[in-house]
Structure formats: structure tokens, C-alpha cells
């Protein structure tokens, strides 16, 4: 009886809490929009021009998602399925573009084009936006596909190779097995690309997201902007729901393989070609933008690194502290949500996190302001607690899915055996589940840290007065500071992030050894 009540509490409380903290602000905003605006305004965004713009934005995002997924899959296959030197270093280096904001990428590539060809007109186009989004987001696809490829049981491939050639085996066996991961990779990148404002705005390309931004920031037309956001949300949700099976069950971001071994192939004759290919990619996605930043930071009349550090020091410290708190929150809530979904069958909290994940940042920010800006909850709105809530809304879904995939890999029989022996549930969770989940928790922790440290969209709207956050500082200083100073600040921010990732990986290595039975 007692166990049932505990299970019930564990099931209901998170749904209720998440609903009150993150779901209700969005509903309140929606109701205010429906109640406040005139009917003509409510429907004014439903016209041919808007629908064409949605179509164009979807087409651009689809192209970027396709290219990024293809590139990521090729990389993942090379790095996770082929046996050759330095794969570990390549894996880490190719993930680094995730730490650079799309906007910085766009600036670096534009300058790079001009530097190389003396003309950068070609990049101010849809092609430029698609190129940058492909380069920025393909590491996500590589992560997801790498995880999926590692999970394929070697026996399937070996059995296939006995009767059909390698190429046919890839098409007939590997491809169907990784199809869910391909779908989730495509969808995630599609949503990231669709909701990015900075790159299309910088290249002067009109997309649906820039349109929403224009309504918010140039025309201050809240009802229309929120209406358009609802349409964007509807499009994203439709895509997500159409693939809900994949989204819920796809093995994305799994970080370990339990109970199966993946087959690796030797490619002796292709070594030079593969290294060449990976280096080319490294040049495009990492060395080129970083080189441009270094050149720009050294091109001023003076060296700005010391001034940049003085400007960034306090913001960097505050940002790292906040990102650590946010990471702890995201990992804990992610674990809770993942557990109740995978083990107790409650999908609602995850659906709510999915909703807040795909809501445009500006809309989420305004919803939080309208809901929390009351004297009685000023201890939330006036402090960094509001940022923690915002990050939970933005990245809770990702943390929850990474951990959820880890949970799904743990055989239920282990818990059942412990239950039969009369061991209490909490002890089973602490002694069996947690150690086995360690790699997934670690991956969720690192990714949450990276995402929290670089978040700008909602931070800009809700960060408490008097505090400083690293992305905000670069964003506001870069407006009128010398290019060399801005580039120096960006390099420092990159160095801070890489430093902490390095520290986490070192700690992870030690802890992985301790929990090696996981």
C-alpha cells in the first residue's frame, strides 16, 4: 500500500510541478493572447504570404537538416564503425563546433569568404544560411548516429556479410536499424534550424523566425507575434507528433552499450582518404572559424586579450556558477522525468518539456515574465532562479531523453530480481539504477552545461538586473567595440567552455573507472 502511494506521488508530483512552473506560463500567455486581441488580429497571420514564408523556412530548415544528418552519419560511420588511428581525437574535435554560437560562425564565414575570394555576396543568401546551419548542427547528428551505430549488435552484420556484399548489407541491415536515429537527428536539427534567428537575420534572409522577431522588436505587435509563434509551434508539434514513435523511442544520445558488441571494420587501403576527409571537415567547421577569430583578434591596433579578460572575468565566473547550478537541476529533473516515463509509464511531463523545448525563445521569455513578474514571487523573478527555470524549459527535454535512453538499456529483470528479494525501491534505485546510469547522467551533465553556458535567447529577456552572463556580455559589448576586442572575448569564452569540458572529461574518466561495471 505504502509503495503504491510513493509510486503515485512520484508519478503525479513532477507532472504537477512542471505544469505549474513551465506549462502554466505558456497557457496564461495563450489565454491572454486569445482574450486580449481582436479576432481580426488573431487570424491576420493566416494568409498566403505567411504560409509561403512558412514553406520557404521549412524548405531551408529541411535542407540544412538533411545535409547535417548526412554529414553526421558519414562521420559517425567513419568514427564509430571503422578501425583506424586517432578516432577519439577526431570525435572530440568534431564536437567542438557545438560550443560556437551560430552567429559567430556566420560572421567568421562571411569574413572568411571575403578574405579568400575578395567577395562574399554569395554567402548572403539561402545557401549561406543552409551552409552555416549544416556546419553548426552536424555534430548533433554525429552524436546521435554514432550512438545508434554503436548499438547495432555485431551478429546482425556478421550474419548479413555471410550472404550479401558489404554495400548491400549496409542498405539492407544497417540502414533500417538506424532509421529511428536518422529520423530523430533530422527532426532535432530541423527544429534548431527553424527556430534560429541569428544566422538568417545576419545574412538578410527572411524566414518565419525573423518575421516573428520583426513583429516583436520593430513593430511591438505582440498579438501578431504570438499568433505567428503559435503557428510555428503548431508546425513543430505536427512534425514531432508525426514521428512521436521515433521521438519517444529512438536511441538518441545513448552513451554506452550494454549487453551487445558493435562490429568494427578495418579499412587499411582507405586510411589516407579517411584522414583527408576528416581533416577537410575539421578545417571547415573548426579551424576556419577559429582561425578567423584569431586573425581578427590580432588585427587591431593593439592586443585586446587583457582588456577582454578584464571585461569578461566577472561574467565568466557568474556564468560558470549559474551553468553548474542549471546543469545539476537539469540532470536531476531529467533523471526524474526519464524515470517516470520509462519505468512508470507517465509521458505527460516529457511532453511538456518537449513543448517548452520547441517554443521560440522570445515567447518563452515573455511567458515567464508575464507569469512570474508579481511582487509575491519576486524571489524567483528578481533572481537567477528565473534563469534556472528558463534553462529547464529550454533544455530539460534533451537531458530527460539522454537519461531516458540510458534507463531503457537497463534490463527490468535486474530490478525485479531485487524486488523479489525484498529490497526497498529507493535502495534498488540507488544501488542498481544509478551506477548503471552513470554514463548517461554524465553525458546529460556535460551537454546541459554547454547549452546553459551559451544560452542567449531567453537569457536576454529574463536575466536579473545587476547580474552578468557571458553570452550577454559578448552580445552587448560586441555592438560597438573594436572587432579585435569582440573576437578576443569570443575566444576567451570558447577557452572557458573547453577548459570546463576538459575538466569534466577528466573527472568522468576517473568516475567511469570507478563505475566500470556499469
Amino acid at each position: 500500500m505504502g509503495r503504491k502511494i510513493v509510486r503515485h506521488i512520484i508519478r503525479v508530483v513532477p507532472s504537477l510541478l512542471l505544469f505549474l512552473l513551465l506549462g502554466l506560463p505558456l497557457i496564461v500567455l495563450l489565454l491572454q493572447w486569445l482574450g486580449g486581441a481582436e479576432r481580426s488580429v488573431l487570424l491576420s497571420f493566416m494568409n498566403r504570404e505567411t504560409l509561403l514564408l512558412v514553406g520557404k523556412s521549412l524548405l531551408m530548415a529541411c535542407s540544412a537538416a538533411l545535409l547535417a544528418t548526412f554529414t553526421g552519419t558519414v562521420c559517425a560511420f567513419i568514427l564509430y564503425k571503422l578501425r583506424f588511428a586517432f578516432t577519439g581525437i577526431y570525435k572530440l574535435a568534431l564536437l567542438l563546433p557545438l560550443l560556437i554560437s551560430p552567429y559567430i560562425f556566420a560572421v567568421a564565414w562571411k569574413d572568411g569568404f571575403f578574405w579568400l575570394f575578395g567577395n562574399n555576396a554569395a554567402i548572403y543568401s539561402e545557401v549561406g544560411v543552409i551552409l552555416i546551419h549544416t556546419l553548426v548542427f552536424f555534430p548533433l547528428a554525429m552524436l546521435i548516429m554514432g550512438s545508434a551505430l554503436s548499438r547495432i549488435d555485431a551478429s546482425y552484420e556478421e550474419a548479413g556479410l555471410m550472404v550479401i556484399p558489404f554495400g548491400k548489407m549496409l542498405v539492407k541491415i544497417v540502414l533500417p536499424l538506424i532509421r529511428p536515429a536518422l529520423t530523430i537527428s533530422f527532426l532535432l536539427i530541423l527544429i534548431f534550424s527553424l527556430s534560429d534567428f541569428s544566422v538568417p537575420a545576419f545574412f538578410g534572409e527572411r524566414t518565419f523566425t525573423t518575421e516573428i522577431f520583426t513583429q516583436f522588436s520593430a513593430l511591438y505587435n505582440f498579438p501578431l507575434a504570438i499568433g505567428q509563434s503559435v503557428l510555428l509551434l503548431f508546425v513543430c508539434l505536427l512534425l514531432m507528433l508525426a514521428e512521436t514513435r521515433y521521438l519517444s523511442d529512438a536511441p538518441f544520445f545513448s552513451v554506452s552499450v550494454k549487453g551487445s558488441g558493435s562490429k568494427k571494420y578495418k579499412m587499411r587501403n582507405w586510411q589516407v582518404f579517411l584522414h583527408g576527409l576528416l581533416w577537410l571537415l575539421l578545417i571547415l567547421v573548426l579551424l576556419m572559424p577559429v582561425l578567423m577569430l584569431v586573425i581578427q583578434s590580432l588585427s587591431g591596433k593593439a592586443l585586446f586579450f587583457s582588456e577582454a579578460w578584464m571585461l569578461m572575468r566577472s561574467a565568466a565566473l557568474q556564468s560558470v556558477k549559474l551553468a553548474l547550478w542549471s546543469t545539476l537541476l537539469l540532470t536531476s529533473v531529467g533523471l526524474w522525468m526519464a524515470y517516470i516515463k520509462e519505468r512508470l509509464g507517465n509521458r505527460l511531463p516529457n511532453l511538456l518539456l518537449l513543448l517548452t523545448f520547441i517554443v521560440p525563445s522570445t515567447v518563452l521569455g515573455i511567458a515567464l515574465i508575464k507569469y512570474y513578474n508579481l511582487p509575491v514571487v519576486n524571489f524567483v523573478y528578481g533572481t537567477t532562479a528565473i534563469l534556472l527555470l528558463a534553462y529547464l524549459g529550454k533544455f530539460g527535454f534533451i537531458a530527460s531523453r539522454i537519461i531516458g535512453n540510458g534507463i531503457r538499456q537497463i534490463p527490468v529483470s535486474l530490478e525485479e530480481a531485487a524486488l523479489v528479494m525484498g529490497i526497498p525501491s529507493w535502495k534498488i534505485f540507488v544501488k542498481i539504477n544509478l551506477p548503471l546510469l552513470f554514463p548517461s547522467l554524465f553525458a546529460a551533465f556535460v551537454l546541459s552545461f554547454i547549452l546553459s553556458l551559451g544560452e542567449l535567447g531567453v537569457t536576454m529577456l529574463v536575466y536579473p538586473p545587476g547580474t552578468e552572463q557571458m553570452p550577454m556580455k559578448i552580445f552587448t559589448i560586441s555592438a560597438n567595440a573594436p572587432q579585435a576586442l569582440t573576437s578576443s572575448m569570443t575566444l576567451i569564452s570558447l577557452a572557458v567552455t573547453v577548459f570546463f569540458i576538459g575538466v569534466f572529461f577528466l573527472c568522468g574518466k576517473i568516475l567511469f573507472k570507478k563505475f566500470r561495471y556499469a
Partner: protein
Amino acid sequence: MKRFLNNIILPVILGLASCSAPSDEVVVYTSVDQVFSEPVLKDFEKETGIRVRAVYDTEETKSTGVMNRLIAEKNNPQCDVFWSGDPVRNGVLLSKGITEPYQSKQTLLIPEHFREKDNHWIGFSARARVLIYNKNLIAADSLPQSIFDFTDPAYKGQFAIANPLFGTTTFHIAALFMKLGDEKAKQWMNNMKANDAVIAASNGDVKKRVMNGELAFGLTDTDDAFEAKKESDNVDYIFLDQQKSSIGTLIMPNAVSLIKNSRNAENGKQLIDYLLSRETEVKLAVSCAQMPLIKGTPVPENVPSLDKIKAMKIDYDKTSNKLEEIQPWLKQWAEK
């Protein structure tokens, strides 16, 4: 337990208590570039002992953060003072009932022309619109002398203006609509577009493209031009429309407003007086070449004096209203 009390319960109680207790702080939201506004606010903090809690944003990215915040926070304002780089945003806040009039001895030092009639916003330290050019790409004597020369085929595809939906460019265009009338202004803009004007993302983008040598010249603000000159020897700037019969160049003052029902209104008023002081105008002249509005304020040699520039004569409030009126047309123009 003690730690729980210290870390969780006490901050909550203090947070709740702070909602009503008067505090020795002031909250300012500003869209003036942080690199220029932060030192001024820090000096105020040092001189008065009043803690400044600032939220920074930038015109470069359309002041989205602070403007949307101010509008969304209307019923429970967190901000005491809004300091903007131009009066347009203060005008928007005024139209939404978010600002409050404020008048003091200090506000009276500012010429009437640079104040809202009821003092919902008060101007200080101004910037002007200028033409920035790359000396390697165009000779000084070949430059356009008037903004209307931008339609000359000789300059086809060689110049940029920032997106007229945002920032100071939007105000500049609204001022031109006021001066020329809608029909002539629209014709001029269409001709300029037909002359392959490059629409840059922002004034900063115009500056960078001219500095890099991507374009020969562009329209921007004095502070951008001043920074560009500091960064590169290949760049210089001129004021347009300075001839006797010309319309003059647009002057845009900073604008400061007191927020209605703000929590630290008295501290806010002190900050406004500080921003409107001669000392602040001198600081802004030194840091970003802004031109003081208070007569007799000393300025460095490289900072232009308002007395020596032919300014476009406009009514700032009417121009703000015109801006709201022409925004839909500008949006169409920019997206065409």
C-alpha cells in the same frame, strides 16, 4: 537544517520582504552600448553610493531584450530608469503608458527642442548620422554630399544602409518622411534600392563592411564612425547635406525616462539628473564622440560641436509618430 534555513528559507523571506522595503539601489535598463554606458553607471555608483543594477541591451540587435521586458513588466515594473540611445523607444513606451514625467533643475538645462513636452523623456549627448567611407575605395572629393545623391548611378552597388526597420536608421528614414512628405520619400527610397543599395543587418554591419573594404561607403552614426576611425586608418567620415540649401543631418540625442510606478523612483530621479549633467556629457564625448547638448560643455578636439553642424530641423515626437505610421511600408520595402 541550519544550512537549509540559511540557503532556502531566508532568501525567500528576504526576497518577499524586499518587495516593499525601500532600498539603496536603482534599476536601469539601457539600450546604449554597454561599452559606453557601463562606465557612466559605475561612476554614478561610486559618487552617490547608490547601487546600480543594470540590464544592458543594444540597438545593434534592435533593443529587443529591454523593450519587450519593459512592455511585459508594465503592471509590476522592475525598472526605474530607461536610458535609450534615441528618443524613438521612449516614444513607444510613452504611447503604451509606461513612462512618467520628470522635471528638475537639471532637466531645464537641456534645450526644449530635445525634450518631450511633458518631460516623459529628456535628451542629452547626441549622435549624428554620417557617411562613413573607405579611403582606399573612394576619394574624398568623389563622395556624395547629400543623402539624395545615393540614387546617382555613379554610386550603384557601392554603398550600404542598415535595415530601416531597426535602430537609428528607422528614425532617420522617419525624419526624411517628415521633411519630404510621404510620396517623395517613398520615391527616393525606391530609387535608392534600384541603385543596388546594400541593406546591412545594422549600423555596426555597415561600419564593418566599409572598414573591410567590402563597400566604398555607408550611412551610420557618429559613434560607429568614431570607433571605426580608431580601429582603421583607411576610414573617415563626413556629415551630409551641410550646404546652405540642404536639409541638414539628423541629430539623435540619448533619451532618458522615469518608469511609471517604479520602486526606487527617488534614486531613479537622482540617476536621471546625473545622466543629464555636464560631467556625463563630457564623459560620453570622450568615450564615443557624442555631442553635448548643454551649452558651453567642453569637448575634445576630435568631437564635432553641434554649433558647427547643420542639423535637420524636426519635431522628435511627431517623427516618432510618423515612424509608427510608416513601419508597415518600410517592412515591405526592406523585404521586397
